[in-house]
C-alpha cells in the first residue's frame, strides 16, 4: 500500500493549468507547475472539491469498475443512501432490485448500517466524560481535514465505524450464514457518491483493514442501473432501513436520527472549516454534537453523483417517508456489537503537514522570510504563479517549491528594469561621447 493512497488524481492530458482547483482546495494541496496541476499527496484529503470545480474534468476519482465484482464468486452491493435520490419515480425497492439484476447476489443498504451506527452513537453519547461537542466520523474528508488542520479536535471525533463498514460486516456475516459460504468468497462493493470513501477503503482511518472490497461510483453505475430499473416488471421487497437511516444521505440526517436537541449540522467544506475554527477556539462548548459534511447538501451533493444535489435531497426526503424499516431492538443492537467490530481499533493521529519546520527556530526564520517576500508581492491572489494566493506563493518560495519570478507582476517589473538598463546601455557611445536625444 502506498504511504498516501488517494482516489483523487489528475488526468494530465485534460488539465489546462488554470487556477480553478488551486483556489478552491481547502488544504492548499494543489499547485500548477509547468502548466499542469500537481496534487501534494501528503496534504490532499480526497474531499473532491477539485473534481467539482474543474471545468475540463481533469480531476478524477479512481474507483473500481463494475466489472471488478467478477473477481468474487459472490457479490454484495452496499448502496449509499445517496443513490436513492438519483432516479425520478423509482422506489427504493426498485433501485435495490435493479442492483441485483446487475449481477449482485445480495444488497445490504448502507442506510441500514446507519441505523446501527445511530444506536451506537446514542449509547456512546451517554458517557459524560466524552469531549463535547462530539464530532461525527461519517464524512471521511472531514475526519482527514481534522487530522491536517484541526489536530486539537481529534479527541472529539466519535470513535465509531462508518455505516459503510458496519453494513459490509453485517452483510458478509449474514450472507455467509444463510448460504454456507466462506467470507473470502464474498465481495462487498460500496456504491459511492464520493472519492473520500474510496480512499477510506484503501487506507482506512481508525481501523486496520476495511471490510469493503471495492467502491463503484454512482456515475459509473447510473446508466446500467437506470436501464435495469426501467425494465423491471416487479420489485422485490428488499428495503429494510428506517426513514432515519435513509436520511443520512442529507445534511442533518445523522443529527436528527440521533434525536439530540443541541446539535449543529453543516455542509460544504468551507462552511465546515468555519465552524471547526469556532469549536477549536472553545466558542461552542455548549454544543453536544457536530455533524460536518464536506459536500453541499450532504452526501447527495457528492462529486460522483449524477443528479443535481438539491433535487436529489428532496427526493430522498420523500422516499424516506415511505421507508419501511423499523427501529432496531435492544437485542439486535447488543447482538450486533458482539458479532462485529463496531468501534475504532486504532488511534487517529494528527498530520501536521501545514507546519514549516520541525524545529521552531528554523520555522521562525522561514516565517520571517515568508513575511518579507509576501510584502513584495502584489497581493492580488491571482494564482497565475501556480500557487493559490500570494501568501502561499511566498511560502512555496521559502520551502523551495517556487521562485519569485513565477509571479507575472514580479517578472514584468524585472523585464522593465532590464529594458531600462538596455536603453541606458544603448545610449552609451564608444569613445566617451554622449548624445542627448531628448527634446
Amino acid at each position, binding site marked *: 500500500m502506498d504511504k498516501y493512497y488517494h482516489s483523487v488524481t489528475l488526468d494530465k492530458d485534460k488539465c489546462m493549468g488554470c487556477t480553478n482547483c488551486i483556489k478552491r482546495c481547502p488544504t492548499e494541496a494543489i499547485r500548477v507547475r509547468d502548466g499542469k496541476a500537481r496534487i501534494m499527496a501528503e496534504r490532499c484529503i480526497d474531499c473532491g472539491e477539485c473534481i467539482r470545480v474543474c471545468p475540463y474534468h481533469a480531476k478524477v476519482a479512481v474507483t473500481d469498475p463494475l466489472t471488478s465484482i467478477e473477481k468474487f464468486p459472490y457479490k454484495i452491493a452496499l448502496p449509499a443512501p445517496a443513490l436513492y435520490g438519483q432516479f425520478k419515480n423509482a422506489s427504493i425497492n426498485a433501485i435495490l432490485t435493479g442492483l441485483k439484476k446487475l449481477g449482485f447476489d445480495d444488497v445490504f443498504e448502507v442506510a441500514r448500517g446507519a441505523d446501527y451506527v445511530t444506536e451506537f452513537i446514542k449509547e456512546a453519547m451517554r458517557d459524560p466524560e466524552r469531549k463535547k461537542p462530539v464530532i461525527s466520523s461519517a464524512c471521511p474528508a472531514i475526519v482527514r481535514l481534522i487530522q491536517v*488542520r484541526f*489536530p*486539537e479536535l481529534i479527541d472529539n471525533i466519535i470513535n465509531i465505524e462508518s455505516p459503510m463498514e458496519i453494513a459490509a460486516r453485517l452483510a458478509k456475516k449474514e450472507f455467509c450464514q444463510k448460504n454456507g459460504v466462506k467470507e473470502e468468497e464474498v465481495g462487498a462493493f460500496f456504491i459511492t457518491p464520493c472519492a473520500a470513501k474510496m480512499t477510506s477503503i484503501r487506507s482506512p482511518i481508525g481501523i486496520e483493514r476495511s471490510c469493503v472490497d471495492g467502491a463503484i461510483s454512482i456515475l459509473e453505475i447510473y446508466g446500467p442501473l437506470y436501464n435495469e430499473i426501467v425494465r423491471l416488471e416487479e420489485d422485490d421487497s428488499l428495503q429494510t432501513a428506517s426513514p432515519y437511516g435513509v436520511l443520512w444521505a442529507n445534511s442533518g440526517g445523522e443529527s436528527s436520527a440521533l434525536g439530540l436537541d443541541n446539535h449543529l449540522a453543516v455542509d460544504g467544506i468551507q462552511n465546515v472549516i468555519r465552524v471547526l*475554527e469556532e469549536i*477549536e*477556539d*472553545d466558542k461552542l462548548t455548549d454544543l453536544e454534537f457536530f455533524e460536518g459534511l464536506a459536500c453541499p447538501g450532504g452526501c447527495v451533493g457528492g462529486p460522483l453523483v449524477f443528479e443535481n444535489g438539491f433535487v436529489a435531497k428532496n427526493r430522498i426526503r420523500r422516499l424516506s417517508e415511505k421507508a419501511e424499516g423499523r427501529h432496531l431492538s435492544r437485542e439486535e443492537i447488543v447482538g450486533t456489537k458482539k458479532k462485529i467490530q463496531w468501534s475504532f481499533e486504532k488511534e487517529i493521529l*494528527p498530520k*501536521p503537514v*501545514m*507546519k*514549516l*519546520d*520541525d524545529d*521552531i*527556530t528554523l*520555522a*521562525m*526564520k522561514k*516565517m*520571517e522570510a515568508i*513575511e*518579507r517576500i509576501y510584502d513584495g508581492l502584489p497581493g492580488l491572489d491571482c494564482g497565475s504563479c501556480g500557487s493559490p494566493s500570494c501568501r502561499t506563493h511566498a*511560502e512555496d518560495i521559502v520551502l523551495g517549491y517556487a521562485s519569485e519570478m513565477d509571479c507575472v507582476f514580479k517578472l514584468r517589473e524585472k523585464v522593465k528594469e532590464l529594458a531600462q538598463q538596455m536603453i541606458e546601455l544603448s545610449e552609451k557611445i564608444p569613445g566617451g561621447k554622449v548624445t542627448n536625444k531628448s527634446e
Partner: protein
Amino acid sequence: MMTDKNQVMEQVYTVEAGNFISAGEASGHIKKLLKQLGVDSNIVRRVTIAAYEAEMNMVIHSVGGELILKITPDRIAVVAQDRGPGIPDIDLAMREGYSTAPETARELGFGAGLGLPNIKRCADDLKIQSKMGEGTLLEAYFDIKAR
C-alpha cells in the same frame, strides 16, 4: 514582522474600537501563524482563545489599541495595549461574571464577564496594568514546553 538577534519574532495588529466586521481577524491570523510554526496544538489553542478574548475586550471596551504577538523558541507572549479608558478595578474585572460591557455588545452575545478570567485560565502567566484615562496593558505568557 521582525526577528531580532535574540530570536524574538514580533507581529503587531491594530484593533479598532467597536469594529465588529474585522473583530477576531487578529487572533485568527495568530492561530494560523502558530500552527505553521509547528507549535503544539494545545498551546495554539490556548493562545488563540486568550488572543481572541483580549482582542474582543479592546473592540468592546477600549478606544482602540494594538494586539502584539511575540514569539521566542520557548515562550509566546500576547500583549494587548490600548489607549484607554482603563480598568477602574482589576480585581473586580477578573471575577467571573463581572462585566461592564455596553448593551450593544451584550446583544451580540458578548459581555458575559468571562473575558479576563478566560485569559487567565489559558495563560501560564498573566500581567495586567491599567491607568484610568491612559489605558490598559495586558500581557499573557505561554511556555512552549520542550518536547
